[in-house]
């Protein structure tokens, strides 16, 4: 809980600074837009966080976005699928891929980094091949207004991605912090062997975390596709897995596994999005965007490490 409190304070301080320098930060348009991107990034970051808690990693998220985006646009506009069918397709595909990753990791004992790195390359290639390297978009086409409203509309004045994020946060909070499955995720991430000796089917726990991450990736893939409205297969979703990993780590997940929280991941995401907003609003050259983000994550991890070693020194062994 302390960790979440720490970065919440950091987030608030950051918001206060940005708001005091640039009044535009608090303008309804800016707030809405920030909430929107926090929603999109938050959903898949939660999925990635689950995988990280089991001690794994998923590098293929960004390429999955490209694949899903291309397929969604083509299914709706070129193949004239009904919107529920198209939506189900692009949610199902990342789940299937996640299942494949999980199976390869748990059955063949291949390292998650390697498997999902291959995924990163393969799915990006597939997306470009399927789209013939052409940018795909939704344009002004009709017939899937409901899906567009669900993905990019508003509810009670809040952007839909943010609303969806709130729902997913509540559900996933219960799953991770109150359910048996969530406890198993932590146990497997900390000490898979001990979990196995407790009769836990550790393979299934690990593999299912990739499937769950796939589900959340699929959902935010749809949101992202409608947010950008056009999908260029060679760079749609580039680096998004790294944003997710950064958010999870900033939010208290350990890449060694067994540590993390839903709230932390979401606040971590928000922090990164506000930072990007800050770069834009304060007129910092956007080329510095990555550098600022990297510096903040580094700072966060350093401070955390500092506090941890101090806490360790205080508790007598």
């Amino acid at each position, binding site marked *: 809980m302390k960790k979440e409190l720490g970065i919440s304070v950091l987030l608030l301080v950051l918001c206060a600074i940005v708001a005091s320098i640039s009044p535009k930060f608090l303008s309804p348009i800016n707030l809405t837009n920030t909430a929107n991107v926090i929603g999109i990034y938050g959903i898949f970051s939660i999925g990635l966080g689950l995988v990280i808690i089991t001690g794994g990693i998923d590098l293929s998220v960004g390429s999955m976005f490209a694949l899903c985006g291309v397929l969604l646009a083509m299914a709706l506009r070129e193949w004239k699928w009904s919107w529920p069918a198209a939506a189900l397709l692009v949610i199902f595909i990342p789940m299937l891929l996640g299942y494949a990753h999980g199976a390869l990791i748990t059955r063949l004992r291949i390292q998650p980094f390697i498997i999902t790195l291959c995924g990163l390359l393969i799915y990006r290639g597939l997306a470009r091949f399927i789209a013939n390297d052409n940018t795909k978009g939704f344009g002004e086409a009709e017939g899937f207004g409901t899906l567009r409203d669900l993905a990019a509309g508003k509810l009670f004045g809040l952007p839909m991605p943010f609303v969806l994020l709130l729902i997913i946060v509540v559900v996933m909070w*219960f799953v991770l912090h*109150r*359910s*048996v*499955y969530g*406890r198993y995720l*932590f*146990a497997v991430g*900390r*000490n898979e*062997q*001990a*979990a*196995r*000796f*407790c*009769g*836990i*089917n550790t393979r299934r726990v690990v593999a299912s975390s990739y499937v769950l991450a796939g589900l959340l990736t699929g959902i935010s893939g749809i949101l992202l596709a409608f947010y950008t409205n056009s999908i260029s297969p060679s760079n749609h979703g580039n680096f998004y897995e790294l944003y997710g990993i950064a958010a999870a780590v900033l939010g208290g997940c350990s890449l060694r596994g*067994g*540590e993390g929280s839903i709230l932390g991941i979401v606040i971590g995401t928000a922090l990164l999005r506000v930072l990007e907003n800050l770069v834009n609003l304060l007129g910092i050259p956007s080329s510095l965007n990555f550098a600022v983000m990297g510096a903040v994550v580094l700072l966060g991890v350093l401070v955390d490490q500092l506090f941890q070693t101090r806490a360790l020194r205080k*508790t*007598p*062994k």
Partner: protein
Amino acid sequence: MSQALLLSMQGISKRFPGVIALDNVHLEVRKGEVLALCGENGAGKSTLMKILGGVYQSDAGTIHFNGQLVNIEKISDAISLGIAFIHQEVNVLDNLDVAANVFLGREPLKGPFKLIDRTRIHADTEPYIRRLGLEVSSDTRLDKLSLAQQQLVEIAKALSLDARLIIMDEPTSSLTLSESERLFKLIGELTEQAISVIYISHRLREIEQCADRVVVLRDGRNAGELGHEQISHDRIVSLMVGREINNFYVQSNASRTPGFFKVRGLRTGRYPAKMVSFDAGKGEIVGFGGLVGAGRSEMAKAIVGLDPLAAGEIILGEKVISVGQPRSALEGGVYLVPEDRHGEGLVLGMNVRENVTLPSLKRFSPFNFIRRRRECEKAEEQIRSLKIKTPNAETLVLNLSGGNQQKVVLGKWLGMSPKVIILDEPTRGIDVGAKAEIYRLMRSLAEQGTVILMISSDMEELLHISDRVAVMHEGEICGVLDRADCTEEKIMHLAVGNRSVRS
């Protein structure tokens, strides 16, 4: 043999929170002498050796080495004095070759870029290899060598460091008999070169065979010393024990149901060509003796379904337990308390509550949602009934002592009404007080009708706790001894694969 003193430790005391590990201990080693250091687990042998090796600092006392007063503050101090450790577990890098292991951290360099001088490192290693009779070349990777050969590499490393004193901690625990014989010959050769050896072992026969002198520690104090001609098995034991230890065994009057738990033709992945069969009665404690690598832990894992390659038949009462399926064993009430507490028994980074409830969580979580209050009650219940000493249920288990950690592992399973519980080395690394508590607990579980299978390498434990002892050797049970005619000698005979004493 020269009589000059090489090492003299005087008045060494060491106190850990809650325990006095060493109390005014003295130890002397002469040049070219093999000194056997004996004592039960927890007698203070390893603490004393760690002080000598620079791992711990003593609270009081002085150390003279080679006539000089020395101050060993860190491991490197001990190394530079010429004190070398050969540990029970082999500590080598098996992804590197022999030469790299021998000269690790002291590689000869050459050239302006300080590259490793490959010719010299191998040339320098050769003489040590030859001196130790290690019949491999210096560029062999260590994972290609047997454990005995890896141990020789460690000795080679010690020699290359100009060791004057080599401490060997249970060096034969993973060696075969003929490998052990060779080690003793080597020890003889080392002492002829005026190198001294401190030899730590529980195998008293080995000590009779190779020691010049025996020092016995008991409860952190000097219990006595035996000169060469005085060394005998019985004398060592009486110094080591010094107090009544037989009272751990409680004759049980509980009615036993023989043949309640049956294992038939169990094969394990480690010994696929061998089969294990035995019966255990309700309320019986069956000890499993044998040397390291006899296949006891593998058998235990196979019984609870953790060995995917296992085959055979397991019957509990009327029920058949499907071999190779953890869930079947779990639902039948067959549990394992593994040997490796940190690696397999506990999730160290989780707290007591989470550890205790981990296997039983599903039983009180409707729709898979954890009922916090029930969970806390469950944990508190085990903390109370097992007298686990912890500030509260939210304390991380890594902050508990070994004995209390072991109780947490036991607590995981005791709350789930065990029918059969397998304890693999249940008291390894646990102090005497906690040990007695765990023995009492095992007995009271047995009285309630639980079948207890206890794997133990602690001879006293096997002899005094078990109702029967099954002895394993290379994946098979080579004899079962009843309590009445169970002796250390008989167990040892069977453990080394000699079936003639079957009774």
